């Protein structure tokens, strides 16, 4: 064990603090190549990560960078700097701590490369950027330890993949580098350990005392939740009561739109004018920072928020977490609950508010899972190739490299451990030449192979461009929302471009808790005026959408097998009994399909329980099959558990519709044309360096001829070079992302030929809420043209012009 120097032990003693057992354990393993610490928030996790560093640096003999700390949030890096500088000063240790993020000035950043501090706190993107400089070798020489904070959050995304690739580079620059990961509770610590460790190094997993179980329950309300919809508006009086009863409450929502609507109604009901704020990713930065500051100062009684507050600054005063809407995922729920009471060994307190009747079942299932410590999560699969392509570019920016060496380095990364050399070479070819069947760029290759076999940038100026495109976060196209003023008014936030494109003059929507009226679009800015007296049109801008996890869906299906449900409130219990009487309840190893006439149309419901994305894909596939069979489907709507399709003709036998061959075949033809694919393509193309962030979809150039859509690139590529590696990457991405075909396949596997098609004379209890679901998708062929013509005719008439 690393002995603690007297300055440190003295500091702990002077405060009357004992070193936690897991902090001791981390010191004991300080020499190990890799350690993963799983600890609840408030457990002194960060200190556990830094203690060995402080001990090693105490004698002042180390020159240059010693420890790199990486967190997913730059705010967290700054926060840790403050929290670390205090004790270091008090202990009188000769240690320099600095942070480096996108907000750091360019002078400081330049200086940090030449003269790095002992401890550098940064983000995955800033680290990747650091490794792209020619002097990276000098910056990182002497680096001993890397601490990856909130690694559970990073491990779920490409940011984690990029980070681990950067660490593989650091391991070459600073041999013997030791890695430490700090994680919240996760379902599969071994999987995170595999990602973290330098393959094939071992990684020991330390579990800190998880503390007492959370005090968590479903919020009971006098009136039952509505049959459908989200938002939990019905529960507002009860939520306000709870807010009054606690010091500070975090009120989590699954989407920004729901957070906005809830916040709006909360204010309308807030007779006592309790200070309540709102925080989500689409708000203007100034507005977010104001709320964060108010929170830090303890001026707020509650914050309505989304996943943006899942991580981050430790607000010790939060004593209640309310989750509105079914949590979709047990692990996320547990992590959110952990945001309450950041004091060690105090139980976190949380309430769940089901937004509708079905979510009551989901919440009860989730609560049971929390009690049984049964967390969920889906394995992520091998490392994505778009991130690898960017890594190759970053490596090239730092100087000439040998392809074999780089491949050897890359496969020390857990997620890329099985990457075949051939796949690596295809990515290298793509990065170097574009990888097109038509070898158009031989003269203008981005990377060239020198006579000595090393690869280097053809034009060294390209390095600058590569650096500008570092990062794996690709936002949907956003448009700024500003108050309408002659010289551009106050920024309020952002909405997604597609939402903006649906707006008509006079439409009202919510942003930042304000109701605004759409006045017009000026280039790429949505201009609005304040209209506090009007009723907002539903804000449908998206934010992150999660599908209910496989494990949680399974739990619900298991609940359906019970004869009775004493754990459910009476209204929900009666509902399930009625469904069983009228039709039947879905079962795990079977597929329930109901069909019935309603309102002059034929309807079909497939209870696949495959999650919203997959059920949506299923809707698209089934309607296409039905179209081909002349059944005239007209539209569908999908939820996490079912897809409802309506059309002119009844489906006599649903079984053939669900044959695996049929669905896969439809999938192939449908996929290529799909908007989901184009969206996915854009994201991957930006990450892989095919298009600049400042080009299609990226920031608009100031020039007159703005950017062209990345959809054009996708179509061109598909038409002239269908075997291109970028299309392969896109397909793979879409299959595991938005299309989620994997879960449809898993469902088909599970049900086999056990399809129960029940023909009924009217709507069933379980199907009824589906009729109220928003997000109905019309099935159409030449709809855009028809819509355009209709709208044109209307506009021409309005303007008193002829249409010809």
């Amino acid at each position, binding site marked *: 064990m690393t002995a603690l120097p007297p300055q440190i032990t003295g500091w702990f003693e002077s405060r009357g603090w004992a070193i936690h057992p897991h902090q001791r354990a981390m010191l004991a393993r300080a020499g190990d190549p890799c350690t993963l610490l799983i600890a609840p928030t408030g457990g002194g996790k960060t200190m556990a990560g830094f203690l060995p560093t402080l001990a090693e640096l105490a004698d002042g003999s180390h020159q240059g960078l010693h420890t790199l700390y990486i967190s997913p949030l730059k705010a967290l890096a700054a926060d840790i700097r403050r929290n670390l500088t205090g004790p270091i000063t008090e202990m009188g240790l000769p240690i320099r701590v600095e942070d480096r993020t996108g907000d750091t000035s360019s002078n400081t950043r330049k200086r940090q490369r030449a003269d790095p501090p002992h401890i550098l706190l940064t983000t995955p993107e800033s680290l990747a950027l650091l490794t792209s400089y020619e002097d990276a070798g000098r910056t990182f020489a002497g680096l001993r330890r890397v601490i990856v904070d909130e690694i559970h959050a990073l491990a779920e995304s490409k940011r984690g993949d990029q980070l681990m690739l950067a660490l593989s580079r650091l391991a070459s620059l600073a041999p013997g580098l030791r890695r430490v990961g700090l994680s919240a509770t996760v379902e599969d610590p071994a999987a995170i350990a595999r990602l973290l460790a330098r393959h094939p190094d071992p990684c020991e997993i330390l579990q800190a005392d998880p503390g007492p179980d959370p005090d968590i329950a479903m919020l009971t309300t006098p009136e039952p939740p509505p049959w459908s919809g989200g938002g939990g508006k019905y529960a507002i009086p009860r939520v306000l009561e709870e807010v009054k009863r606690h010091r500070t409450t975090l009120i989590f929502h699954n989407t920004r739109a729901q957070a906005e609507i809830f916040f709006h109604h909360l204010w309308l009901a807030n007779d006592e004018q309790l200070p309540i704020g709102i925080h989500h990713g689409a708000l203007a930065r100034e507005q977010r920072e104001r709320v964060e500051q108010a929170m830090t100062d303890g001026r707020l009684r509650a914050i309505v928020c989304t996943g943006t507050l899942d991580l981050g600054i430790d607000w010790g005063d939060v004593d209640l977490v309310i989750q509105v809407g079914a949590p979709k995922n047990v692990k996320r729920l547990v992590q959110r609950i952990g945001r309450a009471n950041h004091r060690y060994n105090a139980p976190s307190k949380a309430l769940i508010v089901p937004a509708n009747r079905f979510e009551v079942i989901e919440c009860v299932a989730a609560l049971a899972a929390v009690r049984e410590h049964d967390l969920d999560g889906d394995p992520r699969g091998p490392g994505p190739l778009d991130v690898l392509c960017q890594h190759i570019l970053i490596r090239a920016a730092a100087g000439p490299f040998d392809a074999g060496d780089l491949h050897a380095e890359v496969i020390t990364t857990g997620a890329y451990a099985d990457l075949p050399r051939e796949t690596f070479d295809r990515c290298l070819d793509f990065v170097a030449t574009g990888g097109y069947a038509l070898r158009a760029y031989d003269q203008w290759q981005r990377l060239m192979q020198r006579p000595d076999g090393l690869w280097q940038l053809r*034009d060294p100026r390209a390095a600058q461009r590569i650096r500008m495109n570092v990062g794996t976060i690709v936002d949907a196209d956003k448009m700024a929302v500003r108050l309408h003023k002659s010289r551009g008014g106050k920024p309020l936030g952002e909405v997604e471009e597609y939402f903006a*494109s649906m707006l008509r003059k006079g439409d009202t929507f919510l942003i930042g808790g304000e109701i605004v009226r759409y006045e017009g679009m000026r280039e790429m800015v949505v201009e609005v005026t304040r209209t506090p007296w009007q009723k907002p049109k539903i804000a449908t801008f998206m934010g992150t959408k999660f599908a209910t996890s496989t494990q949680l869906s399974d739990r619900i299906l298991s609940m359906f097998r019970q004869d009775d449900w004493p754990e459910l409130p009476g209204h929900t219990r009666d509902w399930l009994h009625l469904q069983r009487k009228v039709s039947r309840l879905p079962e795990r190893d079977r597929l329930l399909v109901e069909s019935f006439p309603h309102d002059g149309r034929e309807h079909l419901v497939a209870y696949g329980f495959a999650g919203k994305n997959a059920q949506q894909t299923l809707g698209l596939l089934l309607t296409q099959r039905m179209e081909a069979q002349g059944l005239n489907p007209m539209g569908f709507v999908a939820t996490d558990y079912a897809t409802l399709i309506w059309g002119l003709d009844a489906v006599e036998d649903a079984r053939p519709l669900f044959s695996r061959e049929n669905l896969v075949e439809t999938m192939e033809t449908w996929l290529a044309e799909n908007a989901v694919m184009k969206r996915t393509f854009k994201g991957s193309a930006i990450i892989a360096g095919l298009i600049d962030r400042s080009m299609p979809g990226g920031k608009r150039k100031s020039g007159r001829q703005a950017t062209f859509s990345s959809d054009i690139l996708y179509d*061109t590529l598909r038409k002239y070079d269908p075997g291109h590696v970028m299309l392969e990457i896109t397909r793979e991405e879409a299959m595991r992302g938005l299309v989620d075909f994997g879960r449809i396949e898993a469902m088909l596997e599970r049900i086999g030929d056990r399809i129960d098609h029940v023909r009924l004379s009217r709507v069933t209890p379980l199907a009824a809420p589906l009729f109220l679901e928003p997000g109905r998708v019309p099935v159409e062929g030449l709809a855009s043209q028809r819509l355009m013509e209709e709208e044109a005719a209307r506009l021409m008439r309005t303007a008193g012009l002829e249409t010809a």
Partner: protein
Amino acid sequence: MNAPSPPIHVLQFRGHTLHAMASGALHWPAAELLCVSDLHLGKSERMARRGGPMLPPYEGIDTLLRLDADIAATRPRTVVCLGDSFDDAASADALDDVTASHLRPLMAGRRWIWIAGNHDPGPIALGGTHLSEYRLAPFVFRHIAEPGAEAEISGHYHPKARLSGRGRGITRPCFLVDGDRIVMPAYGTYTGGLHCDGPELSALMAPGARAILLGVPPVAVPMPRRPA
């Protein structure tokens, strides 16, 4: 056998009948003239040459295949390319063999007029007539619209327009037409657009101007303008 008539929008401009085609070409049947603007051939090559991204190098072929189809459908005796036919002078020189071999047969047997654009001012080695502007009464064809011009057909701006109908936003390249001028959409495959409700096009086009959005067939609407 007649080819099926292409989807077009028929417009009257200065007493002449013109066809706005779904592809973004403008056909003047009486003069047997086809006009296209802003082909931007060689765009992907130029970007790669300047150290930018290596886009799929197929936009030249794609643009010319569409032009081929339009020429086959309209059989013009004269083709006017309204400038910015090449992304820059060097792309015209560096035009790859595939693209060049598609272009030559299109040019054969008809009058081909290259109007100089702001991207490709210099003369090029491909044949055809090179002009800074072309007059065929009553029209004048030039790259950039001039203030106060009459009966002018120009390109340059890559206009596009946005409509929203029943909860779906639709953005398309468009022709802009008022009593004095037509501004053509860009024909090239890799070309972006300038929203016609921006200040420049709102200032250029007279009140009462129409936008003809590309579609099958193209459709006309009052030109969306900058809110006053």
